[in-house]
């Protein structure tokens, strides 16, 4: 779901901007997104549904902030990379055995 949610480049750009600059209103996000406010709002709803952003209402404005915790399952980088290299080492050893022949 996170994967799918962030596959859209416009949505990803909105999420990146929130990560980079912190909490912002829909209006502020729209001003820099190059798409209409309804489109930005729609992307934000999808992001919220995925748990990637949280909204906060203040007067007539809605503020959105990134929820980096939602990304935690995605970023166990070291164990994933270690697994990658372990498998490659297996392949490398197979190759080295073949090179003897």
């Amino acid at each position, binding site marked *: 779901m996170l994967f799918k949610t962030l596959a859209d480049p416009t949505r990803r750009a909105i999420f*990146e901007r929130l990560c980079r600059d912190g909490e912002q209103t829909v209006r502020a996000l729209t001003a820099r997104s190059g798409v209409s406010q309804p489109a930005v709002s729609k992307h934000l709803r999808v992001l919220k549904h995925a748990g990637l952003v949280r909204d906060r209402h203040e007067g007539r404005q809605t503020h959105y902030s990134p929820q980096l915790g939602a*990304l935690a399952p995605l*970023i166990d980088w070291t164990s*994933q*990379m270690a697994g990658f290299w372990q*498998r490659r080492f297996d392949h490398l050893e197979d190759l*080295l055995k073949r090179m003897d022949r």
Partner: protein
Amino acid sequence: MNKESTETLSVVTEREMPHPPEKIWRALTQQPLIEEWLMKNDFEPRVDHRFKFRADWGEVDGQVLAVEPNKTLTYTWVAMGLESVVTWTLTPTSTGTHVRVEQTGFRPDQQRAYNGAKYGWQQFFAALEQVVARTD
């Protein structure tokens, strides 16, 4: 961001292999051999050489940083917006070679790269896992 996330991320994988360093060096540096255990590539063991590793799930861009034949090889590894450095170290032992690979990732305090990389790697690994599952 928590304290740990301000450190450079690093992965070390090591293994003793009953083969001489010269032979392992060939497997690490010659295109047809690299393809057999890692990925399709246009690699050359020459400092500054830019290359790509290619697989069904995507590409890794790299540039050779250091070459010391039969001993060490260092290159950048850029995939899905995440830059890291891969260093191979071959150390002769009485029975063969100690092979060590260290991959050092971005510094997470570079927030933008970090945040970008978080889902970038997921794409990378999701695709990778599919490939691995198919080949098992």
